[in-house]
């Protein structure tokens, strides 16, 4: 676990994209215990930024520094791969080394059920938890509020208010209820 307040990742003038740049000139600093939120319209390149932090081939320009031995956890936007898979919630958590401690009670009861028998919201929160409660240093969360009902969103909001001290969080969302400018570093990306 990293000391709270330590810089874990720094990007300067970052350009990301595939064959051509989607986004250029992004400055970013991820600090343990702090949430950095990327806001912007669809297609602005927010999700590509998250991917580019772990995939060098998507970084087309700029410089990126990471703390030595940094472990990146990435929650992708789409929940794929769970259909027709005999895997239960407890096994999903074990795959990333995530602990079930702290899981909301309404999910703790479902840990022995197959993932494809869970509701969309239950599955989404469990996917989020399997990344958030795992021993990663930086958590890249792409639209973690997708499919969550009011109860799930409240639990996610509470978690974002007090993220783990030793982990930096970078959040991509279109859900204003998850954005708290007073507690988070907010970066607005133009189209």
């Amino acid at each position, binding site marked *: 676990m990293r000391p709270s307040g330590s810089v874990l990742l720094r990007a300067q003038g970052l350009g990301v994209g595939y064959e051509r740049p989607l986004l250029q000139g992004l400055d970013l600093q991820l600090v343990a215990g702090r949430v950095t939120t990327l806001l912007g319209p669809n297609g602005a390149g927010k999700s590509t930024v998250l991917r580019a932090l*772990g995939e060098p081939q998507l970084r087309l320009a700029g410089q990126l520094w990471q703390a030595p031995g940094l472990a990146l*956890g990435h929650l992708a936007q789409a929940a794929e*791969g769970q259909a027709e898979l*005999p895997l239960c919630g407890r*096994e*999903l958590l074990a795959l990333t080394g995530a602990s079930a401690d702290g899981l909301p009670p309404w999910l703790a009861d479902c840990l022995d059920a197959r993932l494809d028998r*869970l509701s969309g919201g239950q599955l989404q929160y469990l996917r989020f938890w399997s990344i958030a409660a795992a021993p990663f240093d930086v958590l890249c969360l792409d639209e973690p509020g997708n499919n969550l009902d009011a109860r799930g969103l409240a639990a996610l909001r509470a978690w974002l208010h007090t993220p783990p001290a030793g982990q930096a969080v970078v959040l991509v969302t279109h859900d204003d209820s998850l954005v708290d400018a007073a507690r988070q570093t907010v970066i607005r990306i133009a189209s």
Partner: protein
Amino acid sequence: MNIDLIFDPLFRLPFLTGLLLAVWLPVLGLYLRLRGEWLAVLGMAQLASAGALGGAVLGLPAVAGGASAGLLAALAKWGLKRPSDSAYAAMLLLGWSAAVAVMSNHPLAEQAAGAVFDGQLYFTGGGHLAASAAVLGIGVLVLVRAHRAMLRARVHPALGPPDAATRLAFDLVAGASVGVAILSLGVMASFALAFVPAWRVFGTAPSWRSALWRAIVIGLVAYVLGFVVALLFDQPFGPAGVVAVLLVARLAPPWRQRADRRAGALSAGGEIGKLD
């Protein structure tokens, strides 16, 4: 029908050989299905059968020829630029064409083809048993190392695939296993043991751990049934094995856990709450 044949010491070695493969192939099939590569088993089996027949023409021992051909088939799969069901189907067609061409033009290959296509388990010896034990042992070691990364790549693809060495090790052990299995059980019985139990348990088992056990049980029960029926009715193992796997998998009861129903109830409750 001679029931005493079942207990004849002559068939102990073949029985053990098949038993090891009946444990291992369903497990291998689960991981291949996890990766969306179930058709690859048949593609590799056909390529390996062509290689094994070629090995027979060159005078190689059958098991060595099969295992080597399986390894080459795995390397061919590994080298595919875009692995897909279409590519595996092309491997299958290519393997079948080569096998039939070799078989039609050389009497030694024609003889070996009987073992590969019919599944002449009852004529296997110590070499087959040793090779089956080796692929089972090495396969378990590879899976102990690769299991977590392979499952994680399916549910969290953004965390990346298993490293290249792990993927290659898995492909090689899969190829060698298929190569050894086709020379003992036959092409289609090997495919059935790798494909059918995994197919059956993917939709019904409540967890990965239970899927593993359930697939093994289906494979073992089906194998013993197929072995006994083929022996009693003086048939090659292949067809009896295939029918037994299909039958046992069909009769295996669905396995739903209480937790599944609870999750469904909670989720339904949530929907009603929202409507209110």
